[in-house]
């Protein structure tokens, strides 16, 4: 049974994600520049970049296989779908029953596998280096992410994201220490997964430290555009999941189409604040050495496990 409001909300959510994701990226970059006393690029700079890249010719390596060519589409598809699953505007989403929190982590993993395979496909040194680093991070970040989602699931007795948000948002306000700890862990994981400072610096091509940039070094033209857009979508999806789990207010319930109208400004506001916070985090932290990254993610995992344990002990 798919209600037309649900369908509308779903389409709106994906469309909004596709449209807003580069804006969020631009917003974070702008704040980062301001905080670092630099002149900020325009808020619309990511759109311009995407536009430029889509109009460029895409150059492929001679020995690139079809995998190299389809990878950007798969990655982009995964991220768009993830944005569709995450309850950004409404909890009444037709796609939500198809995929729960675990499937969401699976989607991210799928994208990661493809981009890593593609990076190794051409056989350049940087590509395999980036792939290795990406897998290292993924292998440590995914369990932590799962643990975070589990602590939320334990509270609400469901792994469906929509149900989690529904339960958290529409019951009487309560303090969940376990969620607070899980929130910190989630922040750690998000930083690592989205290649932000202190794990990676999205603004450099320094070979010793880069992770994300090393992966996509061989891409150009529309392929690169898709990947960059997917990266923005990933940040958007993570932000939305974080907001949904830890600040679930303002998300519309099922069957209240008007509430969606209020949900949009609420979401934009929350994302704006979140973006500023991200910029602050990126400014006050220095990028850590690559060898410290496992420690960083282990800490995230540890926090998530503490959250689980605390929930079991306190029931809250």
């Amino acid at each position, binding site marked *: 049974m798919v209600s037309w409001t649900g369908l509308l909300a779903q389409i709106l959510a994906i469309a909004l994600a596709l449209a807003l994701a580069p804006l969020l990226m631009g917003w974070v970059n702008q704040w980062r520049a301001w905080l670092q006393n630099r002149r900020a690029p325009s808020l619309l700079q990511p759109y311009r970049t995407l536009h430029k890249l889509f109009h460029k010719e895409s150059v492929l390596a001679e020995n690139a296989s079809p995998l190299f060519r389809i990878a950007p589409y798969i990655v982009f598809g995964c991220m768009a779908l993830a944005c569709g699953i995450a309850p950004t505007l409404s909890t009444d989403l037709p796609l939500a029953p198809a995929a729960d929190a675990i499937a969401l982590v699976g989607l991210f993993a799928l994208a990661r596998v493809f981009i890593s395979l593609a990076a190794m496909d051409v056989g350049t040194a940087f590509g395999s280096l980036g792939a290795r680093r990406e897998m290292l991070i993924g292998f440590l970040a995914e369990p932590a992410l799962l643990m975070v989602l589990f602590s939320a699931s334990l509270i609400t007795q469901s792994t469906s994201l929509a149900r989690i948000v529904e339960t958290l948002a529409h019951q009487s306000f*309560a*303090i969940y*220490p376990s969620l607070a700890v899980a929130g910190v862990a989630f922040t750690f994981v998000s930083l690592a997964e989205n290649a932000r400072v202190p794990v990676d610096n999205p603004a450099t091509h320094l070979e010793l430290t880069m992770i994300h940039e090393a992966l996509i070094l061989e891409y150009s033209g529309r392929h690169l555009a898709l990947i960059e857009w997917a990266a923005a979508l990933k940040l958007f999806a993570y932000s939305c999941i974080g907001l949904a789990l830890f600040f679930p207010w303002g998300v519309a319930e099922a069957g209240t189409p008007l509430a969606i109208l209020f949900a949009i400004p609420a979401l934009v506001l929350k994302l704006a604040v979140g973006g500023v916070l991200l910029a602050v985090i990126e400014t006050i932290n220095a990028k850590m050495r690559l060898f410290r990254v496992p420690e960083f993610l282990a800490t995230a995992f540890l926090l998530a496990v503490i959250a689980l344990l605390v929930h079991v*002990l*306190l*029931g809250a």
Partner: protein
Amino acid sequence: MESLLAQTINLFAVALLVLAFAMIAQRRILTLIHLYTLQGAALVAATLVVAHLTGQHHLYGSAILTFVLKVVLIPVMLHRVIDRLNVRWDVETLFNIPTTMLIGIVLVIVAFNLAAPIASLSASIARGTLGIALACMLLSFLMMIVRAKAVPQVIGFLSMENGLFFAATAATAGMPMIVELGIAFDVLVGILILGVFMFQIREQFDSLDIRHLERLKED
């Protein structure tokens, strides 16, 4: 409102636990002292909330005592000690942090298991916190075992005392005041003596590394 306040006790309890973990993983002595101060502050906050909720007035006294001792006096003393010993910027090489963390997790599970049957019996508003207090204690204990330098060992000792104090406050709404005073006095004297010791050790070994203190062994 009252129930929200009661829930903040759990929040502070978790803060204590997370801080205890942070101490295990912290390499810098200076940051360790900051973490200890924070832990003391969380303890004060929790004590105040319990005092407000239970109406036990002597707990306010205990909160003031904790504040003076653990947020002001002892951190100031520790700062002076590390200044005078010139170890302010010391960074300790730790043996395998992830392994230590895993052991820590196991300890937390043990503590929660031990405390679970008791938590269900306690009538106090913050009964679940007994397990957390015990976990903090065991974690500080772990910290004392894995640390090789004198100052971190002492901080581990003090943070264990924080866990104990939290157990007394949260699980039983405070021990009798005279006992708390006695305990606070003992802690204060203890830290003074440890301070004296650190200078003596330094004088004798030219270092605060406890690994020098391994001559007395069964061979």
